[in-house]
């Protein structure tokens, strides 16, 4: 470890640009700290007074402060430097060099803050939520490993390093979803999450290869440089962009690979807050933003991203309407909001997407942790067993309320500003007010889908809030407010959910857009009051409708009246069933068994058949060729000798006179021969 640290420090020579900020120069510490923490917790965690949680909290807090210093010191207000350092990881003489490096810019700085802050909040929260868990120490170790992987993904200056982080967060997600692996469902959900995202990752990997083949490097800066110089053909870029987006579809749970995220709610709720709301699932969005020039170069790719986003946001929002499990409501909401970001990227509004990522991380983490607080209190995920909790859990209620309003897009909360920026951008591109990056009509579709989704979002959040907090308690036992270790993070996140949006107030030219500058774009659209009015009206309408329908809590779910459509939503559009019936089952149970049958009977049968054939023919050869022909010849020699002997013996009749006669005859013959020819 020390050696690696020293090597990292030593290698800080290949400087591209520098920053006077010590923290920025040493940003590699941010991922390294949780990495060290992971090993420390594994090694000594169980012997620590707080079972290792303090190690994780302290290191992540340190990382968080470093991140904050970097963001505030260098990037707030815009115009921050791009700091790149790398050490050679391993060279492939003649082919390529792979580096371990860091590339710090505003986007990364923002991601650092998001990841470390949410991770810190979640870890503090978990000390209470996971209290008494039998794998408490391991849980914190895994959280830190996840934090490291995510930060490594963010900091990476090359695609291979990014891929390592990318897969690392995947496996940590697997480990944490399956944290309570005694239940079969949980481990199945974990596997589903990993395999589904890995499916996207194959496309991602191919995408990396395509870029590598074209640019001859894995380095992100160099790739982007070559893209901007126009050295890579349009077709290649389109292919690369679409393939990379395949990875993002998996990681960020976009249609059609979104199916894992709701199941991933099987994990502990703080894990859902960290991994499946604020950080890992945003990796896809981050990837697109990081490689935005690659996408920008291809209209087709951008359109595809936008359309997938537009479709997914509606599809997921509809699914969120009918969920009873509060975590699943939030999970579908997450898919929907991630689709918002994707769609924003697809229309070319990279800054807006990252802004939404930024605000969403806070209020969605807040909502998940709030849901965790509820679950902790009532020991059930189902909203049908909640109700009336606003009196017994005031802090949870207030913070959850803030989160919901932020998500619904009510000004001046954070979600409003970011969502509105996306809608504004989409509208402006869609109406041709500004030259669109993609196709104009696509941007318009995104705007319409966005408005509809905003309405649905407000509605299902209103439904969730009313079902849980209003009315009378329908569950068992006597719920009470959670301990301060849980409410503390809620309050902090609630404050952030209020203020985070001000970073990107419309028209502030050195605001959030200038900090991150996705794709070199720092422009921030000024407010369009008509659009604001529309989106606010939609949000308020959604909330009001929710209040009307679920206040007081209806005995039967009113949406059931939708009939077939309700069933369709209940079956998740039959997509899970389709995958199960058409892909998983056939491969796992049918195809594999068929293959195994082929293996055992055909291929191995051939081998065994050859062996058996060899044995049979050997027996045949022995029986017929060897015993009859070859040994027959040997025996034949004996037999024929005996037979001839038997015949010749008659010459020897015992008649001496005949012998003599023969003798003389012989002599006479020889005498004749000698005299005649001799």
């Amino acid at each position, binding site marked *: 470890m020390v050696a690696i640290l020293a090597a990292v420090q030593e290698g800080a020579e290949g400087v591209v640009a520098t920053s006077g900020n010590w923290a920025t120069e040493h940003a590699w510490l941010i991922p390294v700290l949780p990495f060290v923490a992971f090993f420390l917790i594994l090694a000594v965690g169980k012997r620590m007074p707080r079972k290792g949680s303090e190690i994780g909290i302290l290191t992540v807090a340190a990382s968080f402060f470093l991140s904050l210093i970097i963001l505030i010191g260098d990037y707030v207000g815009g115009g921050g430097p791009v700091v790149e350092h790398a050490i050679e*990881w391993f060279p492939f003489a003649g082919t390529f060099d792979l580096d371990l490096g860091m590339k710090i810019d505003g986007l990364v700085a923002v991601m650092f803050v998001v990841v470390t802050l949410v991770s810190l909040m979640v870890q503090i929260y978990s000390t209470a939520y996971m209290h008494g868990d039998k794998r408490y120490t391991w849980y914190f170790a895994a959280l830190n490993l996840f934090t490291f992987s995510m930060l490594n993904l963010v900091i990476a200056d090359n695609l291979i390093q990014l891929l390592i982080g*990318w897969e*690392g967060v995947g496996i940590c997600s697997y480990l944490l979803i399956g944290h309570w*692996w005694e239940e079969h469902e949980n481990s199945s959900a974990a596997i589903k999450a990993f395999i589904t995202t890995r499916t996207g990752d194959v496309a991602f990997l191919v995408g990396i290869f395509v870029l590598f083949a074209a640019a001859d490097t894995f380095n992100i800066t160099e790739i982007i440089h070559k893209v901007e110089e126009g050295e890579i053909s349009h077709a290649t870029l389109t292919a690369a962009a679409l393939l990379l987006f395949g990875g993002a579809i998996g990681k960020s749970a976009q249609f059609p690979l979104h199916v894992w995220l709701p199941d991933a709610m099987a994990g502990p709720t703080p894990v859902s807050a960290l991994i499946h709301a604020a950080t890992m699932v945003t990796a896809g969005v981050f990837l697109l933003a990081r490689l935005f020039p690659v996408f920008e170069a291809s209209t087709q790719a951008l359109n595809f991203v936008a359309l997938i986003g537009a479709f997914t946001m509606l599809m997921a929002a509809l699914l969120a309407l009918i969920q009873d499990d509060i975590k699943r409501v939030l999970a579908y909401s997450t898919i929907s909001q991630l689709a918002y970001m994707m769609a924003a990227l697809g229309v070319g509004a990279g800054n807006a997407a990252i802004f939404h990522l930024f605000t969403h991380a806070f209020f969605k983490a807040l909502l998940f942790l709030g849901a965790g607080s509820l679950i902790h209190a009532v020991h059930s995920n189902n909203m049908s067993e909640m109700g009336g909790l606003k009196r017994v859990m005031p802090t949870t209620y207030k913070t959850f309320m803030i989160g919901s309003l932020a998500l619904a897009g009510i000004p001046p909360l954070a979600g409003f500003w970011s969502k509105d920026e996306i809608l504004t951008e989409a509208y402006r591109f869609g109406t041709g007010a500004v030259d669109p990056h993609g196709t104009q009509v696509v941007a318009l579709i995104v705007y319409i889908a966005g408005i509809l989704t905003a309405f649905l979002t407000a509605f299902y959040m209103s439904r969730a809030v009313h079902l849980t907090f209003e009315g009378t308690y329908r569950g068992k036992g006597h719920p009470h407010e959670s301990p301060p270790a849980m409410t503390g993070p809620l309050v902090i996140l609630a404050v952030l959910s209020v203020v985070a949006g001000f970073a990107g107030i419309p028209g502030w030219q050195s605001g959030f857009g200038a900090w991150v500058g996705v794709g070199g774009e720092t422009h921030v659209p000024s407010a369009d009051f008509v659009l604001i009015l529309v989106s606010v009206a939609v949000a308020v309408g959604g909330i009001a409708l929710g209040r009307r329908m679920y206040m007081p809590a209806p005995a039967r779910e009113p949406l059931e009246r939708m009939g077939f459509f309700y069933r369709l939503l209940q079956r998740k559009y039959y997509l899970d069933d389709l995958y199960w019936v058409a892909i998983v089952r056939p491969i796992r149970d049918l195809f594999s068994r068929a293959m195994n049958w082929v293996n055992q009977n055909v*291929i*191995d049968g051939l081998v065994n058949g050859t062996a058996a054939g060899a044995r049979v023919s050997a027996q045949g050869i022995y029986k017929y060729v060897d015993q009859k022909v070859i040994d027959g010849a040997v025996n034949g020699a004996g037999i024929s000798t005996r037979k001839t002997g038997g015949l010749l013996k008659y010459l020897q009749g015992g008649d001496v006179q005949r012998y003599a006669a023969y003798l003389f005859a012989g002599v006479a013959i020889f005498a004749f021969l000698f005299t005649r020819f001799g």
Partner: protein
Amino acid sequence: METFDTWSLSLVVFLPLVGALLITVVPKAQEAAVRAVALVASGGSLVVSIVVLARFDFDNTRTFQFIVDKSWIETIGARYHMAIDGISLPLLVLTTLLVFLCVVYSTKIMPEPHRPKGFFALILLLATGMSGTFTSLDLVLFFVFWELVLVPMYFLIAIWGSERKEYSALKFFLYTLFGSVFMLLGFLAMYFRSRHPVTGAHTFDMIALQGQTFGSKAFVNLVFAGLFLGFAIKVPMWPFHTWLPDAHGDAPTVGSVLLAGILLKMGTYGFIRIALPLLPDAARDWAPYIGALSVVAILYGALCCLAQKDIKRLIAFSSVGHMGFIMLGISTLTDTGLNAAIFGMVAHGVITGMLFFLAGSIYERFHTRQIDQIGPGMMQVMPYLGGILAFSAIASLGLPGLAGFWGEVLSLLAAFNPAEGLNVGLFRTYMVLGGVGTILTAGYMLWLVQRLNLGKASEKHVGEKLPDVRPVELAAWTPLLIAIFALGVYPRAVLEITNSAVTGLTGLFG
């Protein structure tokens, strides 16, 4: 030191043989002495190989080092020619390490029947054969070592194996022997068409054979076919793999470890050391077909894994898939591909070796290899064993940061950009299919972990008070676990050794 440099490889190779001979004269009752001899012989071999590693000139991994070249069988010009370069060095060290760990493991955990004398003697004999294969530069010498391996492995399986052990042992022996006959024919064909650059006589020397024209294109392709059959069965490539699950399944633990860890690499090593450099043109003709078979192996191995109910057979089939990635790398005939292949060989050696150790220890505790009888919930009963199993399984599915990743991803990268003259579209198709294979690999590995480790343990196992990881197991496994992690974060350790040597080789392919 010069003497050392000349004879160090012989020491590595023959020290175990001396140990084996010594064991045969130790009285049967002196089990401790038998173990001590085995430990000293294999440990000594390991130490010498590490000294070799330390004295190796890493700036010239392309040139052969530690050369010994003495006259051996003069009448046919076969020589006692041994040396190592960057390609064989990692494999040699892997061999001595794994053998030593197997001996350590066996000092305490011995399969039935309890006959330590024969057991250790055979392992040591095996070690001589394996390290000899990786060091010899003379085709006859190579062949002798290659065949030497069969005998001890046959007896290890046939005596100490389980279930259908006689069948499996015989199948292993005959199948590989069948292949090596054709390989020998190939060797002879090259011999009789060769001319030593200095003496002008026929030669078996691998270096002297390089760059010779053995005859018409058809003839050379035929020779390659002979070599291919010999090596492909050993690898094993699809569809010559069916001896593997049987042999692996029924072999004793250390037998499986050495079989998977090292024996299989002899096949891939043969391709890299003999088939490619000696017959480059034929290799280019054959590459698309080899690539196709590799991809089939990847997908097919993964699918068969999903259907297995027996833990050792499952790991054996996973080997088929992983060796598919290695062969895919070789078939691209590029630097990247061959580096990937050698890295994959080392990584597969430590990871699958580790998995077989685990399978053996599980079998020893539960007395069954059926997954559904061991699981679910093994991790509840034995948290550390379960944890190590999960770690190894995750390493095996190619997670970045662990050893399995680099071999796979570099081999796929190589397939994306195969050598000049190969059909790019075809190899890219292979690459995509190989990528799909990684999904399936993740699927069966995680499913295995779920079925074995996770869930609630049955009452029966909870009551049995099964021992968790024992000291001797920890001792034998720790180096492998460290290697899995270290190779993952510092792949340079292997790639730097292999790269230059590999570049020299791929120079033949333009």
